[in-house]
């Protein structure tokens, strides 16, 4: 596993990936759907898969004395690391956003702990759509990515839209008021902090469990592939 991860970072990583982390700066833009910034990490992963297809990474990997299961594990852990780096980069961006800009985000999820949880769900939705499909048919990379982009943007639209609507209608609907005051704001009360931390914990748990299931499904698919 350690050797496969070393291979991922030494041979498979493309220079463009660190550049995609600059999209974390989008969290500093006032009134912006910040989850779109998270999507760019998924886009970076696509560049990795695409470049690796060109460089025959799978051909090289399957000839190493490792099992197909290990190959999948190495790549999925690599994807998680890439996504977690973006997750961590979001934290200072959220703090700077709150210190420098006006409160609230009419375009969607506010820069908050909730945004971190929502970011994990964006990653999970992408991974669920993309990774098992890729390991079922590695040669249809573009098709898998295109479908995943559509699904991810529908998810982003739903999450951002829910938060945007909550803010707009918080004075008319009590549920939206609760969302706006507890979830979709930079937490300034203990209740809001606790609520958002619970949400983040749930999202992290779902992400973790989801990645285990994605790994299992991907291994199952890859075992059936003729290279």
């Amino acid at each position, binding site marked *: 596993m350690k050797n496969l991860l070393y291979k991922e970072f030494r041979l498979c990583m493309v220079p463009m990936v660190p550049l995609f982390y600059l999209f974390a700066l989008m969290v500093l833009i006032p009134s912006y759907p910040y989850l779109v910034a998270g999507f760019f990490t998924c886009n970076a992963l696509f560049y990795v898969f695409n470049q690796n297809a060109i460089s025959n990474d799978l*051909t090289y990997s399957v*000839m*190493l*004395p490792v099992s197909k299961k290990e190959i999948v594990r190495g790549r999925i852990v690599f994807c998680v690391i890439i996504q977690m780096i973006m997750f961590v980069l979001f934290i200072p961006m959220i703090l700077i956003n709150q210190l420098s800009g006006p409160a609230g985000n009419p375009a969607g999820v506010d820069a908050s702990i909730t945004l971190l949880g929502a970011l994990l769900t964006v990653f999970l939705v992408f991974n669920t759509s993309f990774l098992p499909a890729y390991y079922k048919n590695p040669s249809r990379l573009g098709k898998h990515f295109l479908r995943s982009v559509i699904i991810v943007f529908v998810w982003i639209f739903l999450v951002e839209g829910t938060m945007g609507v909550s803010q707009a209608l918080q004075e008319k609907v009590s549920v939206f008021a609760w969302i706006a005051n507890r979830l979709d704001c930079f937490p300034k009360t203990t209740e809001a902090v606790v609520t958002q931390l619970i949400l983040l914990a749930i999202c992290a748990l779902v992400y973790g469990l989801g990645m285990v299931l994605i790994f299992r499904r991907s291994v199952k698919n890859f075992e059936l592939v003729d*290279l």
Partner: protein
Amino acid sequence: MNLLEVRDLTKRYERFTLDRVSFSLEPGYIMGFIGRNGAGKSTTMKAMLNLIHKDGGEVWIDGHNFAAEEMLCKCKIGFVMGEFNCYQKSTLANITEVTRRFYKEWDETAYRGYLERFSLDERKKVSELSAGMRVKYALALALSHNAKLLILDEPTSGLDPVSRDDLLEVFRGVIADGTRSILFSTHIISDLEKCADYITYIKNGKILASTDVDSFRASFRLVAGEREQLEAKRPYLIGCKPHAFGFNALIHAADAAQFADCRVAPADLESIMIYTEQEDSHEESAL
């Protein structure tokens, strides 16, 4: 003990079947794996290495069942599909640094030796190497993790004659100590004439012959006869080529007595393959 033993390897596709392919190779020899494009050479190699799922059969590497001990067997194998064309933008040093971590038996001294012997510059990127140098790099990697069996799929295709000859010399050097063997597929028959000890001939997914090169050659003859002899001789002919004055054909050596009135000559590998494949196309066109 055989270094490689393939038993009844079978893979079924909708329009092609690799049909109970069997052959074996002892340490210290080079086996040429020949056949037309689409005959099943690459499919056989991939099925041997579990890159595609076989429908039947077994592969044994140095006494170990590949299916049961895949990791151990992979350590004993160096496999190159064509030239080494992975990670084109990476330097050889980078690729080697990663590769060596996967092999407990990696021999850095041997690796340095092969780099020098093959005149490989580790600072170069894969994309900067010629086709011949890429094959040599793949060989250097394989030999440095102490691979006993090199399986090379069309390693000489795309190389100029000088580079091919150079590479074939390298092959001979690799097996010189009698502990390693090479199985390489090719449709360049002259390569086999130069370096193969054994030959395995596959046609339409079936093994036609797997024997030493001399026996294989000796089991055929080339014949040339007059036009009026053609019909009487036709049952013995393989891939007959009629022309204005008579015919040329291949025959089994065992039938040579029937051709005392014709010109008979030893057969070379290329002629054997051409006439054998032509026989098939005649049958197909007749159908």
